[in-house]
Every structure is written in structure tokens, then in C-alpha cells.
């Protein structure tokens, strides 16, 4: 009797432990997606949500990771910056997601930063940004200024022979910081003060007549002139339209843009824009098999032949694959172990090379300069000979020149000052100062 009872208890205990074990194995890896699906930023961010969902679907078809399925948890921060912080908290504290892919604007990232640091989460940020930040918990898969702005200016200076510069941007932190970096850089290279014109416009600016006319007369001083544009979002359409109507062609005054990609061009009649430039780390027109496969998968996923891909989508593709590799390497989704494992991980990008996660949580990227074509695509006219590693702290700003970030032990610091040899203020405070 008693033996039988023991066996029974033992068996049920065994069964329990087995069922618990299998439950653990089937527990999906939760991937939080923090992109605005409504409000002003929905125009850019919706496709990124779809991209991550597609990548999750593809990974699940391959059998997931570590035998576990992936599951998307989508929230809508509605282009509302404080809501980004709340939604991030919801993802980490209630949904207990293992990783977050999200954000577009810098201000939304700054709002999420303290939450992700407090709750020790992981955030992959896919958009080009102004730099001056490196957080233990954030991985920057978009371009830092030295991976976009500086090479583009080099191209204009050395290949096109530009001597006069218009720095035009929307009035917020990314253009202001980028232009500050570029101004210092240009002056270091012998450009005089009167050969630089800086112009800021409000968000959604639609009346460009005066500014375009100013650019036109600025450009008739006899030196080759170019416009470096950090104009954001919607404002680009009327800007380019005005350029076309006032007859400024790319061979007179080329405009190189850092925020205009395939997505933005799909809203404009690109006929008059042919030849204007953009600097990115990826173009949809890049002729590699990996890219064509990605595009085909994306077209099938969206069920629309005319959809386009763009640079932040590639950044998510890279970030997602890096996360998967890091989880495989660490053998767990534990945040601290993944954080350690991911540094040094290399995955293929879509432009025929590899992206590597650097110790400062930025990645290596090639820099491509593309000319706008009449079908809303870019044709690559120049690229860096090799990939460029992202620099968290710009060498062209007084406050950050001596700063480096290295999240490997024993340094483990985002704001290491190479002059004083000490780890400075926390990244959040530093960023606040640099603004």
C-alpha cells in the first residue's frame, strides 16, 4: 500500500516537473514593439512595426530560438513622448518582454531611456540620430553622425568640389546637434564663416518660397554650393516641390538629405528631384541577393507590389538578427547575459557586408550616397571603401571630444573621459548637458 502510494506521489511529482519543464520550454520569447501607430509619427513608424512582425514570423518558421517561439507584443505610444515612457514601463513591468524594438524620434528615446535603465530592459533603436549618448541598455542600430553626416560632407567636398554650404534643418535636437558638428567639421577644413548659411524651420513647414529663393541667391556667389538638409518628415515634400518650381536642379545646387528615404519619396512626384542626393547606410536599390530576398519577403508580407523598404527597416533587420545571435550565444534571454554576449556579434547586412556590434553599443555600417531617380528610388553613386564604426561621442563637439563608451567589463561605462581617466556622469545627465 505505502509503496504504491509513494510511487503514486513520485509519479505525479515527476509528471508535474515534466509538465513544468515543458511549459518553460514552450514559454515564448516576448518581443516588445514600441512604435507609434497613430499620431504624426505613424507615417514613419508603422512600417517598422510591420518589419519586426515579419522578422518574428520568419524566425518562427525557422523554429524560433533555443526551441522557443517568438511572440510580438505591440503597443501604440501614439506619437506622444511621455506616453512612450509609460508604454515602455508597461512592456517591461507588466508584459515582461525580453527585448524592445522601438522609437523613432530622439525625444521619444530620451523619454524611454530612464525607464529602460531602471527596469534593466533591452532597447534596439533603428533610426539615424545625433549621437552624444550611450546607454548600457540601448543598442543603436541606426547611424551616428560619423556614419552619415560626415561622410556625406566629405563626398560633397572631395568629389563634387563644394565650397559653400547651406545647413538647413527642422528646429529640434537632431538637426541642431548635427549642424553644430558639421559646422565645426567644415571650419576645421578651412571653410570660412561667410560660406556657411544655417537655417532652421518649424516642424511641418510648408511655405518654402523665401528660403529656396535665399538658397538660390546664396548659390550664385561663384563657388559651388550644396545644401545639407536635416529637414524632417512632412516638410520635405513642399521643400522639394519649391526647389523644382524655382528651377534649382541638382547640377546647380545639389541637396543632400539625411532624413529623406524611399518612404518619404513615395509621397512625391520625383521628376524634378532627379539627381538630388541622400546619405544612408542602405538603399532599396542596392543590388545584392540578400536585399532582393528581403524585398520580396516584404512585398509578400504586405501583399502589395509597390511597397518600398528603407534604412531604418534594415537597421531593425540587423538589430533583430543580432539579438537572435546573442540569445543563441548566451543560451538564455537573461538581459545581463545577452548584453554581454551581443558585443562583437556579427550578422550580414543587406548591402553585401557584415554589421558588428561595437563595445559602445553602436554598429558598423557602410555609408552610401545615392542620387534620387524618377521612380522614387536611389542609385548609389559613392560608398565608403569599408564599414564605419558608429561613434557615440562626436569628435567635433567640445563637450564630447574626450569621451568614449565601452560596455565591456572592467570599464563598463558609457561616458569614460580619456583625459581625466574616470567614468563621468550617467549618460542621461551627459545628454542633457550636451543639448
Amino acid at each position: 500500500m505505502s509503496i504504491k502510494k509513494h510511487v503514486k506521489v513520485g509519479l505525479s511529482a515527476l509528471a508535474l516537473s515534466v509538465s513544468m519543464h515543458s511549459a518553460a520550454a514552450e514559454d515564448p520569447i516576448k518581443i516588445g514593439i514600441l512604435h507609434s501607430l497613430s499620431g504624426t509619427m505613424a507615417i514613419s513608424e508603422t512600417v517598422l512595426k510591420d518589419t519586426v512582425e515579419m522578422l518574428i514570423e520568419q524566425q518562427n518558421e525557422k523554429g524560433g530560438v533555443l526551441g522557443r517561439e517568438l511572440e510580438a507584443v505591440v503597443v501604440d505610444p501614439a506619437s506622444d513622448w511621455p506616453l512612450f515612457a509609460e508604454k515602455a514601463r508597461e512592456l517591461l513591468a507588466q508584459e515582461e518582454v525580453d527585448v524592445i524594438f522601438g522609437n523613432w524620434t530622439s525625444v521619444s528615446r530620451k523619454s524611454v531611456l530612464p525607464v529602460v535603465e531602471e527596469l534593466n530592459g533591452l532597447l534596439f533603436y533603428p533610426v539615424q540620430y545625433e549621437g552624444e549618448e550611450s546607454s548600457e541598455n540601448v543598442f543603436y542600430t541606426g547611424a551616428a553622425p560619423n556614419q552619415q553626416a560626415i561622410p556625406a560632407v566629405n563626398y560633397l567636398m572631395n568629389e563634387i568640389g563644394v565650397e559653400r554650404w547651406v545647413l538647413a534643418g527642422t528646429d529640434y535636437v537632431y538637426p541642431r546637434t548635427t549642424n553644430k558638428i558639421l559646422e565645426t567639421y567644415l571650419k576645421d577644413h578651412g571653410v570660412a564663416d561667410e560660406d556657411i548659411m544655417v537655417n532652421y524651420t518649424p516642424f511641418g513647414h510648408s511655405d518654402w518660397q523665401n528660403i529656396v529663393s535665399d538658397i538660390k541667391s546664396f548659390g550664385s556667389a561663384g563657388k559651388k554650393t550644396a545644401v545639407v538638409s536635416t529637414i524632417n518628415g512632412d516638410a520635405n515634400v513642399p521643400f522639394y516641390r519649391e526647389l523644382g518650381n524655382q528651377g534649382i536642379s541638382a547640377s546647380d545646387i545639389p541637396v543632400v538629405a539625411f532624413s529623406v528615404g524611399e518612404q518619404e519619396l513615395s509621397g512625391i512626384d520625383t521628376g524634378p528631384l532627379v539627381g538630388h542626393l541622400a546619405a544612408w547606410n542602405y538603399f532599396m536599390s542596392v543590388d545584392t541577393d540578400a536585399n532582393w530576398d528581403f524585398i520580396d519577403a516584404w512585398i509578400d508580407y504586405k501583399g502589395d507590389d509597390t511597397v518600398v523598404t528603407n534604412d531604418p527597416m534594415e537597421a531593425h533587420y540587423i538589430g533583430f538578427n543580432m539579438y537572435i545571435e546573442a540569445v543563441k550565444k548566451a543560451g538564455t534571454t537573461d538581459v545581463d547575459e545577452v548584453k554581454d554576449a551581443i558585443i562583437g556579434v556579427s550578422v550580414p547586412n543587406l548591402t553585401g557586408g557584415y554589421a558588428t556590434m561595437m563595445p559602445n553599443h553602436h554598429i558598423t555600417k557602410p555609408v552610401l550616397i545615392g542620387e534620387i531617380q524618377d521612380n522614387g528610388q536611389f542609385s548609389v553613386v559613392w560608398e565608403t571603401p569599408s564599414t564605419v564604426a558608429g561613434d557615440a561621442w562626436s569628435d567635433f563637439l567640445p563637450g564630447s571630444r574626450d569621451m568614449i563608451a565601452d560596455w565591456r567589463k572592467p570599464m563598463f561605462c558609457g561616458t569614460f573621459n580619456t583625459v581625466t581617466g574616470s567614468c563621468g556622469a550617467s549618460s542621461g545627465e551627459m545628454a542633457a548637458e550636451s543639448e
Partner: protein
Amino acid sequence: MSIIRRSLTSLLIALACLMSVPAMAQEDPGRELLVNLAEAPSSRVEEAINAIVDSGDERARGWLEAYGNNRLSRVKDTGQVVLVLNNRGRDWEIADPLTGENLGEMSRRKLDRVAINNAIRGKLEGIMAMLDLNAADPDVREASAADMMGKVDAALVAPLQARLEKEESAAVRDRIEAALAIYRVEQGDIEAVEVLAGSLHPRARAALNNAAASDSPQLVEAANKALASIEQKLKLNKAAETLYFGLSMGSVLVLAAIGLAITFGVMGVINMAHGELIMLGAYTTWGVQQLLPGQPGLALLLSIPAGFLVAAIAGIIIERSVIQHLKGRPLETLLATFGISLILQQLVRTVISPQNRTVVTPEWMSGSLVINDALSLTLNRLYVMAFALIVFAALMMIMRKTRLGLDVRAVTQNRAMARSMGIKATKVDILTFALGSGVAGLAGVALSQLTNVGPNLGQNYIIDSFMVVVFGGVGNLWGTLIAGLSLGTINQLLEPWAGAVLAKIIVLVFIILFIQKRPKGLFPQKGRAAEN
């Protein structure tokens, strides 16, 4: 479906290949020229282009144009150079550049674009302009001579000279002489400076500026003299241009605000969804263009009544469902209509797309009306200005001369009295609101030619619209017109020296101060109407 299409495509390609076999038998010299162009490294491209021009082939211009437009590609497998007719979507329609025969569709993955960049494109424009100088039409010759400005290099001087001697049209001669003079000034020729003295062309000014910075003192003196005379002319043109900018921005403000002047100004309804009614008008334009592909001009004209109707119907629905229940409660109306505006925005995002939609500008609306080399009026804005004035005149007519206008004025002046005289106040309310909303729709149709058509379109104009109506004096259409035009002009006058951000702020501060002094705006209502 796609399998059928694909197999059809490959069948077509196979057929095309078969058909091109006999053509291959007698080797076409064009084939080699194009392959050379496609294979040339960037340093030899110019040579390849010149070889094409020198061949005297009558197809040369078409090839070069296609090349400049990124329409030349190579089939990766066969190395054949093809003309891309349609480069949108996954499969591209291609043709044989030699025979012009259509080769059907081919996956973009199998094509390799013949590379071009701005430097080459600039040279190409010069070469093409040179080819066009032989055209029969003097207008074409003049345009291409204007294109030559600043693009003349040593190789082009001799043929240009030859052309100049043959040229009959005086306008074309002037252009060619100026283009040659620019080249000569760049080479340090003092006599050529004289030719450029009166020219307002930016390239001429650029050449003179360079000359003024040169080493030769005589050249510097001559250049400075020529520049001074240009400067004087330029100032006048600049002033005229700023005025035009101001009036054009003003007319956009008037268009956006005039509907509000009726719903808010005349009826007293604070309609925060006014911007979204504008947006609906813009989306209607997009919708009509989708229904009539290839005819953007006709579509645009048809969208004028369509945009009016769509926005007017939306206005009626808003009025019946929400606003009529909130009569006399401005704060609640404000909040409710703000909610409606958010609902409409998100509706568009969900139903259509969060992305901006492409509204095509018809040919006759793009480009500009060239007055002289320094002053040109952009056509799309010119049309919008005219449209704004027409809409304004039509509204004035309706308010002054029609029965509806009379009823509206009666109901807004004294509702109870009007009703006792047998006017159906509710019906008048509906019609007035529909009219105001419809006009907002018209504004949307016009704005679709100036700015992006997207869910946020309305938001960008709502504040400006209220500003104009309040500044002009509530309930006064003339006030709205004057206020819109003057605010636009003030803004454009401020912008060059204050910057766009500061100019906006200054205008806002100015209005606040103005309203402090004159709370009823520029043109307050007088008499009995004002007592309400």
C-alpha cells in the same frame, strides 16, 4: 495569377529574342556604342557619350536622354543594353533601344542600371542643349541656349561660335553670347565682362563674382562695376519677389480661413475639425486622380466640385450629429469638434494609410512663369492665388446676392426674429455649415498642389485659420481677405532676416498685442449685428 503573368512575361521575352535575331544579322553600330557607354569606367564615360554624338545617329538624342533619366539598363545574363519604359514595381517594362521594339516585362533583379552621376549629368545637359540648338523651333533653341549658361567648356566653344553665326533669332543670339561670355570671363577676358553687365542670370553673377576675386586688378575693377549695376536691378526684383511670396502665402491663408470665417465668423461655431475638412478635400483630389489615371489636370478640375461636396456632406453630418446639440455652449463645442478632428485623422490613417499620398501636379501647373532671369513666379502658387480670389468672390456673391445669404445674415443677426418671419433657422444652420465646410474642401483641393496630402494636413492649418479670422474681425469676409493677405506678407517680409521660426513667433505676438488693443479685430462688425 502571378505564375501566369510570369510565364507570359518569359514567353514574351523569348519571342522578343527570336524576333531580334534577324536584326542581329546585320550588325547595328548603335549596339557597340551603347555597350561601350555601359561598360565605360567613370573616367571614360565622356568619351563614350561623345562617340554617340559624333556617330550622327538620329537615335542618339533619345539614347542620351534615356541615359540621363536613368532609363538605360543592362540585362545581367546577356549583357544586352535595354531601354526601361516603366521602372515602377517588381517587374520593369523594357524595350530595345536600337529598334524601339517592346521586349515585355523583366524582373528588376535581372537588370543592371547603366550608372550616371551629377557630374556626368551636367555634361550631358550641355551636350543635349548643343544638339537642341539645331532644332527648328526658336523657343526650343532659346531654352537650350539658356541651359548652356555656365556649362560651356573648351570643347563647346567652336561649335557654339559656328552656331552663333548661323543663328537668326535675336533672343537666341543673346543667350549664346552670354553663355560664351561666361566662359570667357572665367578665362580672364575683360571684354566679355561687358556682355554680362546687365545679366541677371545666377551663372553670370557667379562668373563675375569669381572674376572679382581674381588677381588681375583690371578684371576686378570691370567685374565690380558690372556687379554693381546687376545689384541695383536685383534689389528691385527681390522686392517684387518678396511681395509675390507674401501675397501667395496670404492667399493660402485666406483659402484655409475663409470657410472658417463662415462657420466661426458668421455662425459662431468653434469648429476645431475645420482642418480635417480641408484634409478631406485634399484626399478627394487624390481619390479622383486615382480614378482617372494619366489625366491629372482633368482630375484636378473635377475635384473642385467633388472636394466641395465631400467636405460639405461631412460638414452636414458633423453639424447634425454633434454641433446642433451643443448650441450656445462654445466650450463643449470646442472640445467635441476637437475630438471629431482626432477621429477623422485616425480614420484616414486606418482606412487609407498613415503614409502621405502622391497627388500629381498637372503639367500646366508645374514650373514657373519667367519674368526675367532673377524673377520667376511659380505657377502652382499663381493658380492658387487666382483660385483663392475666385472662391472669395463667389462667397461674397452668395452672402450678398442670394436668398441663402440673406437668410444667413438674418438668422445670425436675430435668430428669434428671423424665425418669426418664417425663416427655417435649422435649415439655414445646416446650409451655412455645409457651405463653410465645402469651402474648406475647396481649400484642400488647392493645398494638395502645394503641400503633402496626409493625415496631418489639417493640423498645420487650423491655428493659422483661427488667427486670420480673429485678426480680420469675426463675421467679416473682407476682414478675412485683408487679414490673410497682410499676415502672409508680414510673415514673408520678416522671414529673410528673422528666420522662419522667429517670423512665426513675431506674427503671433503681434496678433496677441493687436487683439489686446482691438478685441474685435481689424474690421469689427458695426450696428445691430455687433450687439449679439
